[in-house]
C-alpha cells in the first residue's frame, strides 16, 4: 500500500442521478478518484455500482449530474467519448467477440485504424504491453480458445492499448482462481504506478482490504461513505454496506443423515465446445445433508448439475437417484425420480417471463392430479395453488395474474424456490441460488435450504461463494478441471486449503482430506 499523500484529482463525479422504470439506480452520487490510486467501489447487488460506472463509460446517460476529468467538465455521450477521455471498463461479461482473434478484438473500434488493418504491428505492441504489465496472451488465439482468466487479460490489454488512464474493473475476481487474483493485484499495481488510476467494483470485503487504497461505499443508490482503506475495517465496511449488523453465521442444527439419495459414479461429460468437462466424477449425497460444490466457475460444476438434471448427455458413468438410474434420461425422468432444480439461469431457464406468476408456479405441478385431470388443466385450481405458495414464501407480487417478468430479482428467486421446494421429492440441486440477491433475500434462501435439509431432503449446492458454502453445507467437495479433488466435512474445513484445491494444488498440511 502506498502512503497517502495529496494526489492530483483525476476524476470527479458530482450529483450523478440515473433513473430506470421503477428504480432510482443512482441518487445524487459523488465520487472522486486520484492519480496513482486504486479505489474500491463497494456495495451489495443493486446498490448502483455498475450503473454508476456505466454512466462513466458512456453506456448510460445520467439524468442529472456533472462529470469532471482532470479539472474539465465533460459530456460523455457514448463509449467512444469515454475512450477519448482515457476512461475504459472491463465488464463482468466480457465484451469480446468469440469468433475473432485477440488482435482483432483489440483493434475493434480503434481510432485511426487503417482501412486495411495491419495486424502485425498490433501484435507486436500487444507483446510489448504484455511484458510491461505482466499480461501474457497469444495475439492470434481465438477468444473461444482462451480461459476466462486469459480473456480478462485481453480486456485489460484492450484498455492499455488505447492509453486508458482510468481503468474500471467490474467484479474482476469473480471468475479467477486465488493465484490469478494475486496476478491481477500485481498487474494493477504496475498500472497505477505511472499516474494511471483504477476503480474496481466489488461486493467482497476481503478484496477491498487487499487491493485498494481508498473505498467508496454505495447503498440503495446513494454514496454513504468514503474511507481510506488503511483506516477502516471489514466490520465497519460491512455495516456501511448493509446498514445493519449482519449475522455471519446462521443457526444450523446437526441433522441425522440418512440413506444415499444421489449417487454419481465416474461421470464423464463434454462441455458446449466439445471438450471434456467432467472427467470421472464420483459423489454421494445422503438424505438430510447438504453437500456443497466449491470451485471457480468453469471447472465442470455447471455440467455436473446439467447431467444430474437430465439437461446434458453423459458420455460415461452413472447417475442414480434413490433406486432409479437416470443417466441420460430426459429431464422429465429426472423430475419424476424426485429431482428438483434451481437453475443458474433464473430468467432464461427457470421462468417464462411473459406468463403469469401463477402459471410459473405451476410449471412443475401442472402434471399432477392437484391441478389437472387427464388432458384438462384447471386454471382456478392453479390460482389457489399459487396463492398458497405466494403466502407461504412471502413473494411480493401484485397478484397471481401478474406477469412474472415484472418481479424483482429476489422475488423471482423466491418464486422458483417455492415451486421447486414444493415439488421436491428427494433431491434438490441448487446452482448459485443467491447470486445477485441482496442480503435479506440471501438469508431467506439459505434458511429455506437448511429447512429442506432438516426435512430429510438431499441437497446439492453449487456456489461460487465460499462463505455461503461454509455457512450452509455439511460437507464441501472441491471441483477442479472436471474432477473432485477433495471432500471435507465443513467443521474441519480450512479456507486456505480449499482455496488451494480450487486452484488445482494439493495442500500439504494435515486436515485436508484428499
Amino acid at each position, binding site marked *: 500500500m502506498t502512503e497517502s499523500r495529496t494526489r492530483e484529482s483525476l476524476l470527479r463525479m458530482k450529483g450523478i442521478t440515473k433513473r*430506470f422504470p421503477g428504480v432510482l439506480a443512482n441518487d445524487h452520487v459523488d465520487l472522486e478518484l486520484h492519480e496513482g490510486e486504486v479505489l474500491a467501489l463497494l456495495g451489495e447487488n443493486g446498490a448502483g455500482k455498475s450503473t454508476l460506472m456505466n454512466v462513466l463509460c458512456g453506456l448510460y446517460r445520467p439524468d442529472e449530474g456533472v462529470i469532471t476529468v482532470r479539472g474539465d467538465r465533460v459530456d460523455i455521450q457514448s*463509449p467512444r467519448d469515454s475512450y477519448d477521455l482515457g476512461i475504459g471498463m472491463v465488464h463482468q461479461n466480457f465484451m469480446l*467477440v468469440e*469468433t*475473432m482473434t485477440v488482435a482483432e478484438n483489440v483493434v*475493434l*473500434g480503434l481510432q485511426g485504424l487503417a482501412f486495411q*488493418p495491419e495486424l502485425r504491428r498490433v501484435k507486436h505492441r500487444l507483446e510489448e504491453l504484455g511484458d510491461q504489465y505482466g499480461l501474457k496472451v497469444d495475439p492470434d488465439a481465438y477468444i473461444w480458445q482462451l480461459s476466462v482468466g486469459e480473456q480478462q487479460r485481453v480486456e485489460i490489454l484492450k484498455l492499455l492499448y488505447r492509453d486508458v488512464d482510468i481503468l474500471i474493473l467490474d467484479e474482476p475476481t469473480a471468475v479467477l482462481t486465488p493465484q490469478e487474483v494475486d496476478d491481477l493485484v500485481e498487474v494493477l499495481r504496475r498500472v497505477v504506478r505511472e499516474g494511471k488510476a483504477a476503480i474496481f467494483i466489488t461486493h467482497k470485503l476481503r478484496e477491498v482490504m487487499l487491493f485498494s487504497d481508498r473505498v467508496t461505499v454505495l447503498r440503495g443508490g446513494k454514496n454513504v461513505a468514503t474511507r481510506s482503506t488503511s483506516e477502516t475495517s471489514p466490520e465497519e465496511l460491512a455495516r456501511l454496506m448493509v446498514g445493519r449488523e449482519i449475522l455471519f453465521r446462521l443457526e444450523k442444527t446437526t441433522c441425522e443423515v440418512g440413506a444415499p439419495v444421489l449417487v454419481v459414479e465416474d461421470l464423464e461429460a463434454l462441455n458446449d465446445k466439445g471438450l471434456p468437462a467432467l472427467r470421472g466424477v464420483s459423489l454421494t449425497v445422503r438424505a438430510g445433508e447438504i453437500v456443497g460444490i466449491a470451485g471457480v466457475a468453469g471447472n465442470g460444476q455447471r455440467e455436473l448439475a446439467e447431467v444430474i438434471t437430465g439437461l446434458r448427455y453423459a458420455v460415461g458413468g452413472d447417475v442414480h437417484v434413490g433406486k432409479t438410474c437416470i443417466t441420460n434420461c430426459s429431464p422429465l425422468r429426472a423430475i419424476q425420480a424426485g429431482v428438483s432444480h434451481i437453475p443458474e439461469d433464473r430468467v432464461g431457464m427457470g421462468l417464462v417471463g411473459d406468463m403469469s406468476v401463477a402459471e410459473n408456479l405451476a410449471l412443475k405441478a401442472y402434471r399432477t392430479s392437484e391441478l389437472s385431470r387427464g388432458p384438462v388443466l384447471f386454471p382456478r385450481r392453479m390460482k389457489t395453488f399459487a396463492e398458497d405458495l405466494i403466502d407461504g414464501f412471502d413473494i411480493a407480487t401484485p397478484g397471481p395474474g401478474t406477469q412474472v417478468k415484472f418481479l424483482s430479482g429476489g422475488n423471482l428467486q423466491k418464486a422458483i424456490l417455492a415451486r421447486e421446494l414444493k415439488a421436491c421429492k428427494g433431491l434438490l440441486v441448487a446452482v448459485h441460488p443467491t447470486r445477485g440477491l441482496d442480503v435479506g433475500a440471501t438469508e431467506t434462501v439459505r434458511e429455506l435450504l437448511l429447512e429442506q435439509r432438516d426435512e430429510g431432503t438431499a441437497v446439492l449446492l453449487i456456489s461460487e461463494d465460499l462463505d455461503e458454502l461454509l455457512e450452509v453445507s455439511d460437507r464441501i467437495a472441491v471441483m477442479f478441471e472436471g474432477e473432485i479433488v477433495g471432500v471435507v466435512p465443513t467443521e474441519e474445513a480450512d479456507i486456505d486449503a480449499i482455496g488451494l484445491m480450487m486452484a488445482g494444488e494439493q495442500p500439504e498440511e494435515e486436515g485436508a482430506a484428499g
Partner: protein
Amino acid sequence: MNVSLLTSLLSITLRAGTSLLYATIGEIYTERAGILNLGVEGMMMVGAVSAFAVGYHTESLVLAVVMALLAGTLLALVHAFLSISLRANQVVSGLTLTLFGTGLASFLGQRLGPGGSRLVGLVGPSLGRLPIPMLSDLPVVGSSFFDQDILTYGLYGLVPLAWWYLYKTRPGLYMRSVGENPQTADAMGIRVSVNRYLYTMLGGALAGLGGAHLSLAYTKGWTENITGGRGWIAVALVIFAMWDPLRAVIGAALFGGINAVQFRMQAAGTTIPAALLNMLPYVATILVLVIITWWENLRKRIGAPAALGVPYAREEKG
C-alpha cells in the same frame, strides 16, 4: 459428354446462377450484420419489374439497372426500419416484405406498360452478350465464362471484392462484430444501427440487381412469378455458403447447373414430366439444407452470426 454440351451447360449455369448469386451475396452481408431479411423474393420481384419497366420506357439499360438497385434498396429500408429502429419480429417483417413486394411488383406489372397497360408480353431492351476479345476464343472456358452479359461479368469482380471487404478491411471487421456481438461492438464505439441499416440496404440493392438480371437478360421480359422462388433459394444458399461469399459461388453454380440440366432435358424432349423436372430446384434446396445443417451440427464451429435476428437495444436495465 462432348465438349459442346459441356460448354453449353457451363454457359447456361453461369447465366442461370447470376441472379441467384447477387441475391445470395446481398443476403450474406445483411445476415453477417445480424439482420435476417426474408424479403429477398419480394426485393428481387420489384427489382425485376422496375428494371424492365424503366428499360422499356426509356430504352436505357443503365437507368433500368439503377432503378432496380433503387427499388431493392427502398424495400430493404422498410425492413431495416422495422427491424432495427422498431425492433419488430424480423421473420414476420421479412415475410411481409415478400408478400408486399410480390404484390407490388404484380401491381406495377399491370400498370406500367404503355398507357397504363400490362407489361406482360412486351419486348424491351435486354442485356446482350459481350464476348471478351481473345479470351472468348478459348476452348470451353472461352464461350462459357467470357461470353456473358455485363451483369454476369460484374460478379467476377464482386465476389472477390465481397470476400476481401469482409475479411481484410476495417469496415468488414466492424460489420462482423456487429453481427456476432452487438453489445461488444457498441461498447467499442462501433455504431450498430448504422452498420445494420447500411448492410440491409446493400442486401436489398443486390437482390434488386439479381431481379434485374432476370427481366433484362435471363428471361427477358416480365411475367408473374418471374423469380420462381429464387429469392428463397438464395436464403437457403446463404446457409449453404456458411455466410462466406466464395462458398456462395458453389451454391449458385449448383443451382445454375440444375436449371441448365432442366433446360437441356426439356429441349431434348425427355419423357420425364415437366412438373417433375420443375420440382428439381426445390427438392434440391431441401436436400442441400438438410445435409449442410446436419454437417454443421457435427462441427459446431462455424455457424450463423451469433446475434442474427435478435434486435439490439442499448438502454436496457440489465
